[in-house]
């Protein structure tokens, strides 16, 4: 991909100290963090995701962080109604949405107020001048107009009459003021595309597809996009607006697309169905941030996928169990509170030895907690959180793209061992997008279930339904409709051999041990734990899981420590204990109060150091790096 430098960084920018774009005319940026912030009704998420797509098409690596309030339309102009979209783009491997933004576009005073403390000194701020009315300033809690004082002295500030310029651009379409105002996000996107030297065509094409049935809105949005772009290009204004450029990423050859966790997981579920050659029935109840998966799957029907929106969380998992009992691949998905409701039914799937994939999009808790903010606090729930001895394998995806692999892996385990499997993802991954090397589904190994046995005359059908594989302890997937194998199953304890109800003490002992052995056996089928980064022994290893992969990766790279990232949470890879024994200290950063650390203590008998963050925001690279250094220094003292 060719790149033409059109850097036009002006004196104001060059004067800024200590910033990632205090660059001279000939240099290029390694990466740049852009934050878009406005009211939840301003279309920030839409604009952000379109900017991400355009970033992908220009060949840059990127990571995004949509950060939006729980309210659908929180009162306009308030700080708690601010919706933001952060994107880190650049040529270096990008694994996080970035610590401190280099560029902020603030649609109103509240967006400025919320975002200002995050910015890097010298950052470029584009403000919608029109929104700085006394009323909006008051709603944002500004006693004085920040444009007038010295609060913004450290930054490059570009004031643009965005509302007004946008309305001018769309005036000829005869829209109402509010309809016209809704084009504002595309006006700003046009400006951004100019700043980053991007093509307008893909975004324009998207608007044409999306608004094909509303020609006036379609044309108005396109006009706004062009007007924003032209605003950037206009000579007299480019004095204050730098055109920013970053290197294209050095990425492995292949075909890429931009993908969110929800998209990748939906495709992974469909791929699992294809690999197992069975239809998939996805049963769920709407909950934040799990619903995007339901919406995605509802559009993949021709892949043999059906979706059922149940009356509640319990019905959702029960219908998925019913589907698995009937021979389809049953999948359900929710977030922590909904998973809690599904708990009893998980026990049924364990007892009945039925395959099932349970996806948990973790969010801040307890109770309703922080529905739109991310957290990793359902690990105890997944591993330990059921009545009785009810072990279930648990997996976790590290990135949006990896949601695909983990969905396939989860179904593979579920069908091989005839067990429910929990896949932990989180709110961050649901909406965050990243470039994804498109996998070849045809090259993946097929998902095989244990063949249903031949039925000799006079045999006990139930016994045949429970003839388990000696390695995986998975039983044959016998489903209603199969002649000669008629039997009863359910939640009551059953005889290990015959499958009939059994209250026999020795049998219950045996069944309890069998259920644990089955889950333990998963470890024999999974790869050994590999090091993500660093040497295999040393003073410190950082152990992570889930969506903290990105910031840990960067922090470890900066500090030269070692990094182990877990995808298989339960059971743990068999070599993990040996691997971690090569280090003086094990540091476990988590977005919870120390849950993986507990698991490692429990399963490996080691004493890891916890580093916990539960603010609803992802880890910053800088804070992780600082903590790694501090732990190191503590060691050497």
């Amino acid at each position, binding site marked *: 991909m060719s790149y033409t430098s059109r850097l036009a960084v002006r004196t104001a920018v060059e004067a800024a100290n200590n910033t990632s774009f205090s660059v001279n005319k000939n240099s290029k940026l390694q990466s740049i963090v852009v934050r878009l912030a406005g009211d939840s009704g301003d279309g920030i998420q839409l604009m952000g995701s379109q900017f991400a797509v355009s970033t*992908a098409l220009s060949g840059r690596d990127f990571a995004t962080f949509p950060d939006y309030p729980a309210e659908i339309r929180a009162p306009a102009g308030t700080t708690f109604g601010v919706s933001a979209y952060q994107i880190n783009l650049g040529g270096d491997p990008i694994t996080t949405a970035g610590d401190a933004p280099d560029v902020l576009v603030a649609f109103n005073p509240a967006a400025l107020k919320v975002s200002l403390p995050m910015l890097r000194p010298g950052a470029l701020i584009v403000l919608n001048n029109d929104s700085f009315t006394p009323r909006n300033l008051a709603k944002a809690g500004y006693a004085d107009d920040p444009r007038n004082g010295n609060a913004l002295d450290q930054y490059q500030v570009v004031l643009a009459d965005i509302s007004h310029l946008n309305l001018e651009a769309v005036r000829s379409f005869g829209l109402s003021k509010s309809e016209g105002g809704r084009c504002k996000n595309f006006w700003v996107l046009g400006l951004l595309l100019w700043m980053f030297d991007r093509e307008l065509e893909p975004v324009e094409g998207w608007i044409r597809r999306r608004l094909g049935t509303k020609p006036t809105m379609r044309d108005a949005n396109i006009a706004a996009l062009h007007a924003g772009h032209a605003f950037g290009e206009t000579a007299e204004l480019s004095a204050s607006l730098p055109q920013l450029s970053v290197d294209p990423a050095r990425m492995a050859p292949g075909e890429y697309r931009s993908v969110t966790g929800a998209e990748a997981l939906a495709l992974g579920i469909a791929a699992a169905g294809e690999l197992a050659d069975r239809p998939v029935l996805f049963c769920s109840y709407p909950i934040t941030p799990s619903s995007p998966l339901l919406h995605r799957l509802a559009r993949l029907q*021709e*892949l043999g996928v059906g979706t059922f929106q149940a*009356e509640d969380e319990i019905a959702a998992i029960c219908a998925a169990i*019913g*589907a698995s009992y009937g021979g389809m691949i049953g999948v359900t998905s929710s977030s922590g509170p909904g998973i809690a409701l599904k708990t009893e039914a998980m026990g049924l799937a364990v007892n009945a030895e039925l395959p099932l994939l349970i996806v948990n999009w973790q969010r801040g808790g307890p109770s309703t907690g922080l529905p739109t903010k991310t957290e990793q606090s359902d690990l105890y729930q997944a591993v330990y959180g059921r009545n009785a001895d009810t072990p279930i394998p648990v997996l976790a995806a590290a990135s949006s793209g990896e949601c695909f692999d983990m969905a396939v892996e989860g179904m593979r385990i579920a069908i091989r061992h005839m067990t429910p499997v929990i896949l932990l993802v989180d709110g961050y991954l649901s909406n965050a997008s990243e470039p994804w090397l*498109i996998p070849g*589904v045809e090259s993946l190994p097929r998902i095989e279930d244990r063949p249903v046995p031949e039925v000799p005359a006079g045999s006990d059908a139930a016994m045949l339904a429970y003839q388990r594989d000696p390695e995986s302890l998975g039983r044959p997937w016998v489903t209603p409709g199969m002649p000669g194998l*008629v039997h*009863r199953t359910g939640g009551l304890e059953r005889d290990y051999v015959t499958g009939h109800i059994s209250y026999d003490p020795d049998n219950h002992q045996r069944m309890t041990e069998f259920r644990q052995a089955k889950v333990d056996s998963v470890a024999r089928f999974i790869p050994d734990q590999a090091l993500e980064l660093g040497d295999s022994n040393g003073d410190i290893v950082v152990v992570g899981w889930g969506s903290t992969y990105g910031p840990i990766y960067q922090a470890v790279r900066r500090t030269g420590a070692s990094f182990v990232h877990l995808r298989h949470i339960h059971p743990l890879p068999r070599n993990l204990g040996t691997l971690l024994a090569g280090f003086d200290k094990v540091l476990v950063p988590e977005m919870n109060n120390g849950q993986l650390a507990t698991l490692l203590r429990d399963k490996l008998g080691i004493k890891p150091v916890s580093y916990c963050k539960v603010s609803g925001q992802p880890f910053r690279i800088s804070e992780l790096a600082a903590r790694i250094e501090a732990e190191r220094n503590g060691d050497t003292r």
Partner: protein
Amino acid sequence: MSKALTAKDFASSQEVRWCPGCGDYAILKAVTKALADAGARPERTVFVSGIGCASRFPYYVETYGFHTIHGRAPAVATGLKLANPDLDVWVVTGDGDGLSIGGNHLLHTLRRNVGLKILLFNNEIYGLTKGQYSPTSRTGTVSPSSPTGSLEAPISPGRFALGAGARFFARAIDTDKTGLGEVLQQAHAFDGASFTEIFQNCIVYNEDVFAAFTDRNNAAEAQLHLRHGEPMLFGENDSKGIRFNPETFELEVIDATGSPGDVLVHDAGNAVLAQLLVELQTPVALGVIYRQPSEPFESAFYKHHPSRMRRTRRVAEFIRGPNAWTVE
């Protein structure tokens, strides 16, 4: 063509563990007979149940059976029916399982009209947990959990079902071989969700709670056996009839010999009449009270699925998305 099966062929080898004298035995017999009469195939028939005395039912029928968790049988059965609509799926539940802990699922299963044959064994008591009052127990029911009498108004299964949008509602008495047999036959044949309330005598915790109309001596005067298109007659020699009183908006008993022209003819397709019939106290309306077919959920589900749940395209065709790019 395989040889015809008898009721005996549908009895499983498992030892039946209900209390001696329990009404469930009679129901089990009637159901196995109905299966045999309908020419059901054991491998294509599934009984799904929740928790409670009634929910042990699947173990005793020689078909596929899934004894699930408390109240959730309709949800499990819905998933099963979607996975394989060709199966003959029955749900066996009780008043606690179906109308208390599982009330939500029953409501939505009925409104969706999922093709399940739902049998609710109503004994107005919690049997398996040793006799607490249930959601159908009458106000004042004395039980271990209500020693001075229960305070709550009972739910009427018929009112519940019709309110939920059920397309088929019937009632029968556990020991009434003929009446129960007829109802089961129609419930089984119905294409959609059929909901049947069976008055079931709990001999241990709530004996004779329905005796006022189930007792042999009271039967003629206290039971109205409905048949679509036939006049609503009951009593000795069908001497009594039911008519609609337009002033009170209620059904009332009249002397059928005196004014036969006033006696209502049962129309199972009439939703308003069904509402009135489920309220009738004496006599108690039995048989198919309401029957108004509409498209079952599973059939709509497949009809609206562009590939009828088959895999007509490959993931590889979708996985690239609209904006893929190549890195050399």
